């Protein structure tokens, strides 16, 4: 990383592109320099001549050769990223911010709840937890999407991870708002997966990531269930330019999402206006 100019990105090559859903792709990137991150931290990706946007990697922080980033087509930069081909170059700088504090999660029961493309940062966290699964008491991974087609990481979720539940202290609950004939799991918005979590909620850790409305109602439900405010972790999303605490665009009250976040405990930010925007 060039510390002389904090805006200087590392060139990265697109190694592979995985189509997750009609508007979501995962890019496998090969950085031209050593690069490591903690689960929940974010990076800034630049498409030369187009622009820059922040993303949280979705691969395991323990996998060091390549880095995977799952991106939904939403604006100018993400559209340009979606049009990249295998072998294309883009820029990456970071990692920035505070990720998930795994030390805090040790010996605890952990509930992860993700909706839609919000599953991306949770995948990175989930893979990090799996890497040292003996350190944690149990994991309940709750996922939701609009339809079965909108699920990202389909192969991993429905084959690999579900089969892990047989031998590991791991449970998965999958839901869709609108089912199809082949859907074998729960039906309803993702909060329905949070009923009867079957864990000691008063000591448990809950991690929420997804669209604002999903985060809001999931958090309210987790509080209802009895999770302590300081044990509910939210992954916040805001407009960001610099990523280094200078430009002030990402602020939630007095907090910088790029510095103190993007992972915040609910207790820290609960009184801030426009929290769920």
């Amino acid at each position, binding site marked *: 990383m060039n510390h*002389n*100019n*904090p*805006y*200087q*990105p590392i060139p990265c090559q697109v190694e592979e592109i995985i189509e997750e859903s009609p508007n979501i792709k995962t890019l496998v990137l090969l950085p031209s320099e050593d690069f490591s991150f903690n689960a929940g931290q974010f990076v800034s990706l*630049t*498409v*030369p*001549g*187009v*622009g*820059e*946007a922040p993303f949280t990697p979705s691969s395991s922080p323990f996998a060091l050769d390549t880095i995977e980033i799952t991106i939904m087509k*939403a*604006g*100018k*930069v*993400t559209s340009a990223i979606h049009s990249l081909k295998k072998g294309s170059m883009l*820029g990456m700088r970071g990692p920035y911010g505070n990720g998930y504090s795994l030390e805090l999660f040790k010996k605890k029961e952990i509930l992860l709840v993700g909706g839609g493309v919000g599953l991306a940062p949770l995948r990175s966290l989930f893979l990090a937890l799996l890497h040292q699964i003996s350190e944690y008491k149990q994991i309940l991974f709750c996922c939701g999407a609009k339809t079965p087609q909108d699920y990202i990481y389909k192969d991993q979720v429905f084959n690999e991870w579900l089969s892990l539940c047989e031998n590991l202290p791991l449970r998965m609950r999958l839901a869709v708002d609108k089912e199809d004939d082949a859907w074998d799991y729960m039906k309803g918005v993702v909060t329905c997966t949070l009923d009867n979590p079957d864990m000691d909620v008063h000591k448990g850790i809950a991690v929420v990531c997804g669209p*604002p409305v999903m985060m809001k109602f999931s958090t309210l439900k987790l509080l209802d269930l009895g999770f302590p405010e300081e044990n509910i972790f939210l992954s916040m*999303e*805001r*407009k960001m*330019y*610099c990523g*280094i*605490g*200078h*430009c*002030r*665009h990402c*602020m*939630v*009250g*007095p907090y910088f999402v790029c*510095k103190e976040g993007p992972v915040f405990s609910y207790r820290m930010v609960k*009184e801030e*206006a*426009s929290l769920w*925007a």
Partner: protein
Amino acid sequence: METFYVTCGNWNEFLLAKAEEGEIFLSLPQQDHFEYFPLSENFLEKACFGVVRPAEPLKFFFFPFSQRILPSQNPSSFRILVGAAACDLEGLKVFDHVFSEGEYSDPDYLLRRNSALLISSDCSSPNRFCFCTAVGGKPYPTNGFDMNLSAIDEGYIVEIGTDRGRRFLGKDSRFLPSSPEMLAEREKKRARATLYVTENSQTFHIEDKIPLEKRISFTAKEWQSLWSYCVQCGSCTFSCPTCVCFLLEDYSGEKFVKVRTWDSCLLPGYAAMASGVSPRPLLTDRFKNRFMCKYSYMPQNFGHSGCTGCGRCIEGCAGKIDKRKVLQSVLTETLLDVRYES
């Protein structure tokens, strides 16, 4: 600190000779305000330092409106800035916090900051918008300058603030030791200016209440009565000596070229994400956010007020909103007419 006395004529000659060392910018009197101009012999004739702050805050020199930041640009030449006021030096401290402290420093800012000499001056005639004393300031600089000028009689008391200022002055026989009488005269003028700003500010009852310690109880409707004359022009943010918000744009081409441009948190698109969703979609949210940023968030972020009381946001407001009245409304939880007379 070390002080000297120099006559106005000798000071002007000194400055002219210093033009060989760098680009000199002077705060010069215009019809109804002061403004920075590059040094020229003609301009010096009407120079009078130590009256009131110039129209532009110092960020104009250290944080240009739009600049390429990647790749970094060549070093700017050495600049000598004459005439910044105490409130401007305070504003620059916020920029120092943002760009030169913490985990990431900004090389462009550091370069500009390190290649500039600051010659500030007292305000002997603060204007009706000034309220520095209400936010903990004074109408004369006590630190943050390389040299400071206080106008007395037919000359200036020159105070040395740094070694760099001392070296810049060098050994120059035109600078005489200042006498106790001269320093007493400076104190008298300073006290007079302080009294003026203090009396002017006291009518708003805002002293000792900043930074804000408690949450503001106003509802959106109450806030609306405060911002209803705001036309979202961004003048208050662009003229503010502490407003640091910027956006980054990439220039088209194969290489990584990035340009930084000022942004304003009052503008609707400021915080809008790619989806179009903004955490502050309403002007109520944005107006309140700007206010909180100055008086609550920046103090929490850097331990330094985000308002220096320079009054530029009031003077330049297209809607004639007097921020002191906004503060008064909020702090006393009383809705007031926040406009001022032209």
